[in-house]
């Protein structure tokens, strides 16, 4: 029996900019099972990132309901959303989004800080994850001293350090050369094999093919 970690029902998202309303998503229905490996594929401007923000609890839908691990997060306050992100989601972004002045170790420890975990424990956890990802020799480097591929690995380590249910990656290879991109994709493949739920957002069919399931999105809606 597999468990549905993500359940999205009739979700829509409308952006209001000035007097113009823009419907970035409409009629989205999507269920993702625990341990699934899903690619969200679509052209630029199709609404992939918007959907990812909703799945990642960074934004709430304008209409519809979203259950994450059985909880209706579409009704959460911003405080509870922050806690849900910390608890269930590990993000990997196209632009790495590391804290540039901080060391690699501090960057990876950061999500644990928001859980109120003590410094020593944060450090040892972060170190452990970084070692697993082959970054043991870079702990004390500032993140902006690393190559793009290394930075994305650090970002993956940061996503993993809280041991979240879901890994959510938005164009994780978008800023990388093909070789480093492959390395990062291999990481996701391994994570999937290790039992994590992985969601990859991409416009690249080749990348999407790594997943077990491809969801195509166009003009803010899922193509069937």
């Amino acid at each position, binding site marked *: 029996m597999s468990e549905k970690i993500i359940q999205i029902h009739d979700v829509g998202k409308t952006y209001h900019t000035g007097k113009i309303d823009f419907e970035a998503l409409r009629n989205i229905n999507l269920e993702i099972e625990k341990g699934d490996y899903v690619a969200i594929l679509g052209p630029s401007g199709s609404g992939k*990132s918007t959907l990812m923000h909703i799945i990642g609890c960074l934004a709430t839908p304008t209409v519809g309901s979203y259950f994450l691990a059985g909880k209706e997060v579409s009704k959460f306050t*911003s405080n509870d959303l922050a806690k849900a*992100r*910390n608890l269930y989601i590990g993000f990997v972004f196209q632009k790495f989004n*590391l804290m540039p*002045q901080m060391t690699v170790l501090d960057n990876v420890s950061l999500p644990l800080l*928001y*859980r109120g975990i003590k410094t020593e424990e944060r450090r040892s956890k972060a170190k452990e994850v970084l070692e697993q990802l082959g970054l043991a020799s870079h702990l004390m480097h500032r993140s902006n001293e690393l190559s793009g591929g290394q930075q994305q690995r650090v970002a993956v380590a940061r996503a993993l350090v809280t041991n979240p249910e879901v890994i959510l990656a938005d164009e994780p290879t978008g800023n990388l050369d093909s070789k480093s991109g492959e390395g990062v994709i291999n990481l996701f493949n391994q994570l999937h094999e290790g039992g994590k739920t992985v969601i990859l957002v991409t416009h690249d069919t080749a990348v999407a093919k790594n997943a077990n399931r491809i969801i195509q999105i166009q003009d803010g809606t899922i193509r069937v």
Partner: protein
Amino acid sequence: MIMLREIIKELFYEQTRAILIILAVAWGTFAIVITLAVGDGLRLNFVQTMSDIGSRILVLTSGTSTKNYQGILANQSIKLTKRDAKAIADLPNLSSVTWRYNFQTKLRYQDKKTYADLRAVTPEYVLVHKVKTGPKQRFISYLDQKKMSSVIVLGSDTADRLFIKDNPVGNIVYVDNHPFTIIGVMQKRPQMIYADSVPDRWLNWIPSSTYELLNNPDKVDAIEVRYKDVGLIEQTKNSIQKLIAINHGADPSDPGIVDFQDVAQKQKKINNFFINMEIFLGIVGGLTLFLAGVGIANVMYASVKRATRQIGIQMALGATARYVVFRYIMESLVMTVIGGVIGMVVAVVFVYFINRIPLQGQILEWTGKPELSLSFLVLSIVVLVLGVTGLLAGLFPALKAAKIDPAEALTYE
């Protein structure tokens, strides 16, 4: 505290910003501590000079009747006499009573001459005014008074002007060509307010009996009393007024009969002046600190704006808006505390050295030597102002940071 370490680390990341803010707060703190210390020091010094001499002195001078009464017409001046002084001496609440005659004349000592203010007074004068003479010297005694001796006590200022350095007791000063034997020189002391029209150090004293013998005056220039209880001062004034009125056949209820000057009231006024000055200085110092606070708020506001994306990242990783608010306020408080401690330490060291500089000058003869005072009150005010400044300076940038929408911040270029 988990967050404190993070914040201090963060301050290291943005060193220049943190250093500038900390310096601004340190400067503001220094300014407020020093201005308050100066104000408080001046006031305490004043209180000190007053407590040496005491303020419970009442000076009575001639008044003018305001109404017709028996033999007295309105607008008639009432001349105070020795008899008045003796009559009020028995009143309760008075510890000593003296009368005085004022005159100015030439003094000559060896080949030095000066023009000086003299006071012919009774031996009780010293009890009223607490004038101190040098070692092996004395003030006018009851025996001097009885024998109408030609003795004189010099004021410190006159002694300086006559170039008297060693103990001059036994030497002769010519008062308007009459030889007077010096029995004492008044010891210098700071005096910011005084019962007489001039400070004590400008005066010189001879026995009233001697003056009376030479001049046969029909009135005294003033009666001076020291009283015991400030609380009873109104009753005391009333009794004095009544007694004098009766002596002169005037209306006992006529308040014009005697003119009272209360040193305690003068002191109160001056004390209030100092307190007002301190409040003013405090506000000036507080404003300096407030400006430092505005600086903090501004710099932090700018840094929040610059760090929008980073704040978005932190939120994505699970930082709640509450945490972000708390963190920015803490950051501001940490900087204010560091700056405040630096400012206070520098101020304390500064005050320590300033108080050790030997001050000299004319003005000090009036004021005494004020020391900068870092009282508990001063320091508590500073800590309070610092706390409020830090809190408010952090609050506004913090609220701005908390409003950041993580989804937007992450797409923001």
